[in-house]
């Protein structure tokens, strides 16, 4: 056990979908499910962290308060945070540092979102100083544009094929069909995926993550509290990475026009994406060879291949072989996205990194039903948020 361990006593989610209701409603459902799972009451909670959403007006910017009010003010301290897709990991990190500092024992972490249809778009107005606005105006660089750039580069560098990308979608659809929290529960065939229209070539409609409504919550406590509460062997959080890039960051990323320049200062040995899970492994004192399953951010089907390498499951250029071997399917050596991943969920931004940890919790307890990874003891999540937010959580039991 690492000195930084905290316990996950409860996990809960509102099913992902396009429900069109108040985002706080999804969060409350998730909190109640997580509290019941933990066998705790709202009055037992002494700190709450809310992951913010940018698409639901002011209540979304102060999510900690929104959820505290919704559950009933009890006077507890609150925090709200935003780190784009990495919001959930940052919320988890705030919760555990508060616990490790001895300033809280029972913390709720929650994120929820209600999303509009279609592409995520920048804020309205003539925002000529906002790089997010400018990339749409001057380049037409939507988020899938960047996914397409990364996917095409894999094809040219490593010989990835359209069939490989489709195979990821097919694999994850088989995983997610057994997940009651998933939005899309349909098994796709390679032919269906390859017949869907091109969005950002070589990527097709069924290979690009949708935007969804959903909510996820965790009840996190100190190890001492878990013991007092009668849980001798809880799922533990043993490492959390919320790192940022090291200059120069030489891989083009949303929402930028350029990478950093490597003309004066050499690029670091480890790229930003390679550093994300590495930091969590370092903290937990283990390596990728110890991992039994992974939940990674498949914003596109092709991006899952990048993550295999970034989290150390294989060397650069070997992800296609790992996929084709079947090792990353449930029943394989190292299943990836047993929840079904974003391909089956779509993205509910502030909830997503928390949802990844909910899946690890259920998997490490052996409660994942038909999608159970047999004998899972260690799991890792990986994710990355716009503007340089790394996110990785290492769980063990």
């Amino acid at each position, binding site marked *: 056990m690492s000195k930084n361990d905290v316990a996950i006593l409860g996990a809960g989610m509102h099913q992902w979908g396009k429900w069109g209701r108040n985002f706080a409603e999804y969060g409350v459902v998730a909190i109640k499910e997580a509290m019941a799972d933990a066998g705790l009451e709202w009055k037992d909670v002494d700190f709450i962290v809310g992951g913010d959403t940018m698409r639901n007006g002011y209540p979304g910017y102060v999510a900690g308060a929104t959820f505290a009010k919704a559950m009933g003010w009890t006077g507890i301290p609150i925090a709200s945070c935003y780190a784009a897709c990495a919001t959930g990991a940052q919320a988890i990190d705030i919760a555990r540092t508060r616990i490790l500092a001895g300033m809280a024992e029972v913390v709720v972490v929650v994120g929820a979102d209600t999303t509009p249809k279609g*592409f995520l778009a920048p804020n309205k107005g003539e925002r000529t100083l906002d790089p997010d606005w400018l990339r749409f*105006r001057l380049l*037409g*660089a939507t988020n899938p*544009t960047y996914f397409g750039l990364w996917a095409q580069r894999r094809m*040219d560098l490593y010989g990835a094929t359209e069939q490989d990308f489709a195979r990821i979608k097919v694999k994850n659809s088989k995983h997610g069909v057994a997940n009651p929290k998933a939005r899309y529960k349909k098994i796709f065939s390679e032919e269906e995926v390859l017949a869907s*229209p091109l969005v950002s070539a070589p990527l097709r409609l069924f290979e690009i993550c949708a935007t969804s409504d959903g909510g996820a919550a965790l009840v996190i406590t100190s190890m001492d509290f878990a013991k007092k509460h009668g849980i001798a062997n809880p799922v533990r959080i043993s490492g959390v990475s919320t790192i940022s890039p090291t*200059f120069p960051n030489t891989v083009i990323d949303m929402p930028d026009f*350029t990478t950093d*320049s490597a003309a004066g200062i050499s690029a670091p040995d480890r790229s930003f994406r390679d550093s994300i899970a590495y930091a969590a492994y370092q903290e937990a004192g283990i390596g990728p060879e110890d991992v039994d399953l992974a939940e990674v951010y498949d914003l596109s089907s092709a991006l899952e291949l990048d993550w295999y390498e970034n989290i150390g499951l294989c060397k650069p250029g070997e992800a296609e072989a790992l996929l084709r071997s079947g090792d990353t399917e449930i029943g394989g050596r190292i299943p990836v996205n047993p929840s079904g991943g974003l391909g089956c969920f779509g993205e509910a931004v502030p909830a997503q990194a928390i949802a990844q940890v909910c899946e690890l919790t259920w998997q490490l307890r052996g409660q994942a039903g038909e999608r159970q990874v047999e004998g899972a003891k260690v799991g890792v999540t990986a994710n990355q948020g716009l503007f340089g937010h790394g996110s990785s959580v290492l769980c063990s039991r």
Partner: protein
Amino acid sequence: MSKNRVPAIEGWLTMDEENPQLLGYLDEQSGSYFFPKDVAISHAPGFADAEFKEVALSNRGKLWSYTTNHYKPPEPYVSPDPFEPYTVAAVELNDERMVVLGQLADGVDPADVEVGQEMQLVLGTLYEDDENEYVIWKWKPVEA
């Protein structure tokens, strides 16, 4: 009557039709380049007080990757009506060692480009209205 050709954004590029260049910044202490103009200091850690001067960037580089968008993006992208697919290319500048995005020049078929090939910067039209053509940088393969 021909329309005025005006930059789609002020101060980001020279309007030299033959040899256009992006206007970036050089931190002379660390040797790092930056584009576009944002916060006017070097972003190399430890070099926030470095001398910082505007420089025209090299307009040649190697194709890092490319993708063709088949769906109309949301505003503020100004789309022709009907929408036409367009290709976004990422090119690593030879001298500055930085990747710069730009649309592929009009008339270049993305089926004919490949990662690693030499590219050059050209001017192209981003969109137009009744009076003006709004000009932006685009990438084009260097003719063999």
